[in-house]
């Protein structure tokens, strides 16, 4: 489209900035809109004729991914004015591929939440219904994609933070295998679980973006050396004979009946495409919430220790050094972040370490085992992405446990480190999107992308857009 000169780079990005001007007051998807930066970038890009895969493509980036020279706040007061002096690996790869950054999207503070309500700056609204949350923590990215404020966006997923908002907003969200995408420049929440991934309008864009951002990075010791398949090339739409596993643990009483219905219909559809459907078990699923909230908060308590007012970010002075620490962190962090720091600090404390952190680490091996066993029997696993559709703003903020339970379908994927994608699979009676989670074996993103693509091509869900 661009290389064919049908539109200029400037026209394309301008159209999105106009759209942002028009609807972002309603969605509140962006924390920072980087218009000047984008047009400077376009000036540079316009001078190169390029075959780069993302040449001139306007994207949004979750505001916990460092962008050199552009504020990266993590939607926290403590980093409200923080401008990174360095570029994250993923945005560096996007830059090399020719993208244009439209702005940084809202998130739950430090990616801790499932509704984007814990942002220190604004509450993002679901484009399908303004009184509902877009999910979280990548709620800003999912809402921006759903509301057409960008072509696609990057999110990060620690326990479902890409897939759940993608599901709630009726878009496609992919969490790659742990290690597939470099975390260098992603502000850490829980280092052993965090992965960056694309949020897009369709599966093809997801494959395209994944291709650009993946690969080993010598700056991230946990990034994998695994070779990269041709993700877009693997989208054949052919899933004949592919074995799909349906874990019974994901269809229990906690799952909304309309969600179940949509997922079951999707299973039928997939079967009709020639796939084989197999009942399987992931027996440790019920322990995922407890395991996850011990490990994630433990790592977070340490990862967030650097925000102490000494070097950058907010500083609230005090009489003594300890007062400065206390004042800064008391003022700088929101309730949910403080809650998680306290939980994690407790779980790591001497005398509790064995009972909590160590036990949870041992339990973690069981999720890995569950998936390994399952993938001996099947190629792909499908489940609902979330137990329900987008909930109302304010509905769960008073009950953290209720909020945590919302992640039940997505957590064990992070604990095991396998890849998973969420794609739209219908709408409930309130007109809210339902998401289908497709889980693959380690580094089998190509397979889940193709499965998602096959299903997507056979249904009309992604053609329905919110009225906003």
């Amino acid at each position, binding site marked *: 489209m661009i290389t064919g000169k049908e539109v200029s780079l400037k026209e394309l990005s301008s159209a999105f900035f106009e759209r942002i001007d028009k609807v972002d007051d309603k969605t509140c998807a962006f924390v920072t809109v980087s218009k000047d930066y984008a047009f400077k970038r376009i000036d540079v890009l316009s001078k190169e004729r390029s075959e780069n895969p993302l040449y001139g493509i306007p994207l949004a980036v979750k505001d916990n991914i*460092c962008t050199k020279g552009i504020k990266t706040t993590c939607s926290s007061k403590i980093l409200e004015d923080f401008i990174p002096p360095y570029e994250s690996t993923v945005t560096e790869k996007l830059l090399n591929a020719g993208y244009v950054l439209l702005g940084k999207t809202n998130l739950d503070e430090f990616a801790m939440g499932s509704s984007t309500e814990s942002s220190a700056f604004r509450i993002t609204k679901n484009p399908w219904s303004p009184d509902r949350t877009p999910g979280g923590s990548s709620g800003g990215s999912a809402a921006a994609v759903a509301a057409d404020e960008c072509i696609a966006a990057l999110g990060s997923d620690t326990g479902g933070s890409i897939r759940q908002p993608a599901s709630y907003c009726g878009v496609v969200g992919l969490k790659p295998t742990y290690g597939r995408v470099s975390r260098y420049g992603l502000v*850490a929440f829980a280092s052993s679980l965090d992965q960056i991934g694309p949020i897009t309008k369709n599966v093809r864009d997801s494959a395209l973006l994944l291709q650009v951002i993946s690969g080993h990075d010598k700056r991230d010791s946990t990034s994998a050396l695994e070779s990269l398949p041709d993700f877009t090339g693997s989208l054949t739409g052919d899933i004949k004979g592919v074995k799909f596993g349906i874990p019974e643990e994901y269809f229990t009483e906690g799952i909304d009946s309309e969600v179940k219905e949509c997922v079951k219909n999707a299973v039928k559809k997939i079967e009709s495409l020639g796939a084989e459907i197999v009942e399987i078990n992931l027996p440790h699923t019920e322990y995922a919430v407890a395991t996850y909230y011990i490990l994630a908060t433990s790592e977070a*308590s*340490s990862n967030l*220790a650097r925000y102490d007012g000494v070097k950058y970010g907010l500083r609230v002075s005090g009489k003594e050094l300890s007062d400065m620490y206390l004042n800064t962190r008391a003022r700088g962090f929101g309730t949910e972040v403080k809650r998680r720091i306290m939980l994690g600090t407790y779980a790591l404390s001497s005398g509790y370490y064995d009972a909590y952190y160590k036990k949870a680490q041992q339990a973690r091996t069981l999720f890995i085992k569950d998936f390994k066993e399952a993938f001996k029997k099947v190629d792909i696993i499908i489940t609902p992405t979330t137990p329900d559709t987008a909930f109302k703003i304010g509905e769960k903020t008073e009950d953290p446990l209720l909020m945590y339970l919302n992640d039940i379908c997505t957590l064990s994927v992070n604990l095991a480190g396998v890849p998973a994608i969420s794609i739209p699979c219908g709408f409930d009676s309130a007109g809210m999107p339902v998401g289908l989670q497709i889980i693959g074996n380690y580094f089998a993103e190509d397979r889940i992308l193709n499965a998602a693509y096959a299903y997507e091509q056979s249904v009309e869900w992604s053609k329905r857009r919110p009225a906003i």
Partner: protein
Amino acid sequence: MKRKLEAVIGLEIHAQMKTDTKIFCGCSTEFGSKPNTQTCPVCTGLPGVLPVLNKKALEFIIKAGLAMNCNIARNSRFARKNYFYPDLPKGYQISQYELPICEYGYVTIESETGEKRIGITRIHMEEDAGKNIHEGAHEYSFVDLNRTGVPLMEIVTEPEIATSGEAADFMRKLRSILRYLDVCDGNLEQGSLRCDANVSVRPEGSNQLGVKAEIKNINSFRFVERAIEYEIKRQIDLVESGGAVIQETRLWNSVTNTTESMRSKEEAHDYRYFPDPDLVPVMMADEEVERIRQSIPELPDEKRTRFISEYALSEQDADMIVAEKRTSQWFEEAVKLGGKPKVLCNWMTGEFTRLLNDKSIDIDDSKVKPHHLCDLLTLIDKGTISVKIAKTVFEEIFEIGRMAEEIIKDKGLIQISDSEEIEALIDEIISKNPDEVNRFKAGENKLMGFFVGQAMKATKGKANPKVVNEIIGKKLSSQA
């Protein structure tokens, strides 16, 4: 009667590794640069950065572990030690806790009672912290992060050291090993080597450990001995007067020569160690460990044994010569040039060491090269100069690095061995000092020294003392 008390000492040593770059980023480790000029997003703990292990640091610590007879872990792990301090930008220090890289080793020291093995519990890798700087009359302090991320190895000994002397011997041996391996420059004063001591006392012969105090801030070899000595005495006095030692951290104060309480066990941090999820486990293949083992040079202990048998050095002499690799290399080079080991050793541990210490320069940087000393010793052997003159000449070589023969010629320092010349001189001395001659003859034998002294003075030390002695003896007895 109460049993006597004995001390039990364990050491925890931090050694800065001599890598060019920091342990988890590419910043330079050079000492003494302007504050915060050797920093990057990684070592200043910016949001989103990740550590990547410096392979050189890993190799260095494995070398040290092998040299101290440790078991090298094939699977080792990094852990985070969590605490808040302005010089610690991430709010945690990357260290090792469970699964350190080296364990179960020992170092042999030569104690008063013979050879003794001091067990090494573990050696692990970690990053150094920065420095808080309190300067001027500000209400605030400064932080310099240049040192942040400099690789450290922490060496922990078993509580097997019995005296402050043994502790100092251990430190000297450790320093020697680290310097032989060229993995640490071993400077306690500048802090590239730091020593904390755990000291406790118990009834002699008991197998149970007493309550320990940890002594910090021991920043010189002298203080290792003094601080531990003081602490042992403090604890013994305390227990003998009916008190009890409490578990605490104490600081050595080198002005008052005492240790002072810093914090009690109750105030101790809970560091909440846990495996660092940003770093993968360190997996070492056998071949890799073997390759590193092959790169280890001859170490002080082996060298000492060899020098004793090969060059017939005494144990004490060998200890002094092998303590520094460069000294031992210098020595062997001189031996190769034909120097007699024992004589070389005397010169090196005596005159040469004295001059090097006075000017505080390293043997390698000295203008005196092995051939200088060998030539000088040959001149003594040939009787061209006396030992005393040789010392003067040596000082001259030390200053300007010229050949001994040239100096001797220039300054007319050639020894006078000609007996006629000396006889004439001594006749003159005898005739000028009749009193002394009479007293000598009356049995005051110590006046011999007076006559020799006069002869040396008259010749500016050039007279061959052997000849002088002979002639004086002959003359004075013949006059009798």
